[in-house]
């Protein structure tokens, strides 16, 4: 593969419309981005909208973004039409140019700069590279720099591509069978929802249950009029895809989201939160596929942080985990309905949870900023105070921690640590994470003793462990992995450390001002090999 510093070989290829295109002409007077693509490569299809955005940002210089298709005219035209591509798309039917640039995989990006030198050559999808290419191109043309690949737009940060066609042809003798339908990892649009006309005598509530619109509680019938009210509250087109919902990857169009949100009882203004919740649930780091298919009871807990919570009426005080506010109950339920209706995981089918979890009705809380002595969750995660966010965490049930006797912050935390040690399974260490919900009275005690949020996390990390004597019972869960555990001393007694890192303990303040009850919520398998908590800004 040609590398940066190499000279970009000149070539001519026909555009899709049959006219000739030549590199030397196109690269004159400014930078040129040449991207080799295959029309059925999911990663190439993921990349195309970003190239389109870059081309649009370049304005009159938009033709400096060029794609070289390794496929035939028909497939290439279908791709161009599907994505409404306006930048030049060239046909390398004989793969001559692909052989000369020789990328091992597609998409392959070559940024050609001054003097026809390659300034960047890269394969696969990388948001960071797309943004740095955009920065280079825009600034060299004197245009305002902008981000073309937002980190929280639902697409992964990176994705490897497919083998380049010129290598594939060499391996398969050039013969190719009829290719299957291409897969879009993040399509921009999908079909509109069908309309169902109910007969005069049909009870709409019973119809919804009979038609399988809800596996559990009855729903508000998603009438065209109600759905329209929610659509009118969003700036997006109804057929715009926000994400593909695992594990069956049904497209969550704005219209389908609105229909499910209506069923859950959402007000139109809640769409501002429901849409980023869908983005977060479809983020592959969250691994909703695993969360839905596991026999464990975890389900997404939505934590709302920032000024939008109060503006939209999310409860954060007394009874926060119960049925206390329409916003909490309906937004959490909207997600659960979409997980079944668009994601396809229904109890006992793909959703194989042994016990399930009451959070499956709705699991949505807001942070009690008013009663918190500490920085709110969204600011802790790097967002501005005026921003608002949703954070998803694959949570099991809530374990309440009563501590009405301790007069010191350390005393409160020791009691919480004892509950934290029970998360997942007592003798099992390092596999999971936890959310600690600190109630306002405990937060006040901690703050009065000088504990910052980071001190609380550090204290819990250092004081949460399982005593070694617990491992005398061989053949129980957690004992088989003890060689991986770190031995520490807590109050002089040898323990295994429960968590691998302080960051595995997340802290929010929520609950009413009376009652010294905090809580611990365990996770499903955490980290890149399980489910990672994800945060998305509340914005359209």
């Amino acid at each position, binding site marked *: 593969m040609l590398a940066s510093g190499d000279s970009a070989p000149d070539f001519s290829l026909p555009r899709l419309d049959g006219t000739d295109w030549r590199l030397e002409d196109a690269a004159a007077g400014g930078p040129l981005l040449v991207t080799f693509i295959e029309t059925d490569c999911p990663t190439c299809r993921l990349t195309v909208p970003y190239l389109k955005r870059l081309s649009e940002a370049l304005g009159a210089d938009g033709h400096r973004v060029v794609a070289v298709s390794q496929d035939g005219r028909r497939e290439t035209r279908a791709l161009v039409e599907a994505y409404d591509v306006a930048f030049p798309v060239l046909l390398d039917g004989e793969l001559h140019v692909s052989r000369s640039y020789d990328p091992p995989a597609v998409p392959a990006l070559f940024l050609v700069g001054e003097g026809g030198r390659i300034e960047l050559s890269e394969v696969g999808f990388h948001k960071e590279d797309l943004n740095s290419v955009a920065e280079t191109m825009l600034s060299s043309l004197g245009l305002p720099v902008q981000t073309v690949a937002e980190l929280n737009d639902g697409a992964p940060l990176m994705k490897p591509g497919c083998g380049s066609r010129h290598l594939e042809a060499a391996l398969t003798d050039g013969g190719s069978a009829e290719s299957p339908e291409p897969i879009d990892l993040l399509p921009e649009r999908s079909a509109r929802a069908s*309309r169902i*006309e109910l007969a005069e005598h049909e009870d709409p509530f019973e*119809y919804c249950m009979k038609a399988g619109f809800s596996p559990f509680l009855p729903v508000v019938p*998603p009438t065209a009029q109600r759905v329209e009210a929610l659509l009118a509250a969003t700036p997006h087109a109804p057929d715009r895809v926000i994400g593909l919902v695992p594990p069956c990857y*049904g497209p969550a169009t704005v219209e389908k989201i609105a229909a499910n949100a209506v069923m859950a009882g959402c007000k139109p203004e809640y769409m501002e939160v429901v849409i980023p919740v869908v983005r977060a649930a479809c983020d592959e780091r969250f691994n909703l*596929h695993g969360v839905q298919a596991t026999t464990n009871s975890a389900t997404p807990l939505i934590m709302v942080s920032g000024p939008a919570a109060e503006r939209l009426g999310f409860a954060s005080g007394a009874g926060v985990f119960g049925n206390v506010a329409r916003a909490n109950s309906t937004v959490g339920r909207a997600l659960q309905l979409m997980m079944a*209706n668009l994601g396809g995981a229904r109890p006992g089918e793909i959703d194989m949870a042994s016990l399930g979890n009451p959070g499956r009705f709705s699991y949505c809380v807001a942070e009690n900023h008013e009663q918190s002595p500490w920085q709110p969750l969204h600011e802790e995660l790097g967002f501005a105070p005026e921003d608002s966010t949703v954070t998803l965490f694959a949570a099991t049930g809530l374990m309440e921690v009563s501590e009405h006797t301790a007069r010191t912050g350390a005393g409160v935390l020791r009691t919480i640590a004892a509950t934290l040690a029970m998360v997942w399974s007592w003798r099992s260490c390092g596999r999971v994470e936890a959310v600690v919900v600190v109630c306002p009275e405990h937060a006040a005690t901690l703050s009065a003793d000088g504990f910052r949020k980071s001190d609380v996390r550090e204290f819990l990390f250092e004081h949460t462990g399982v005593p070694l004597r617990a491992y005398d019972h061989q053949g129980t869960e957690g004992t*088989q992995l003890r060689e991986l555990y770190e031995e520490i001393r807590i109050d002089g007694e040898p323990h295994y450390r429960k968590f691998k890192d302080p960051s595995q303990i997340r802290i929010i303040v929520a609950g009413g001002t009376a009652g010294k009850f905090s809580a611990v919520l365990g996770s499903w398998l955490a980290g890149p*090999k399980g489910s990672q908590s994800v945060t998305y800004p509340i914005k359209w």
Partner: protein
Amino acid sequence: MSTLVNPLDERSRDQQSAAPRLDGLEGKTIALLDISKPRGREFLDRLEQLLKERYAVASVVRETKPTYTKPAPAALLQRLAYVDGVIEALAD
């Protein structure tokens, strides 16, 4: 009369039938796909031994998923396309 907006995934689903079953194990190449649960290897070592001793399989191919929480990567599935049969193997 009211009109409802369909809230379900409306894509058509292909019906896939299960792959034909093997008539026996003798002389076959069998893959054991370890899904990466704790101590899976010990369990599968024994299973491999039994497949060879009692069922006279020609060979046993061992593959391991990177994590049991996610679907197997495409490259791994492609490697499994060439064996006669696959046993997806849990352990705990």
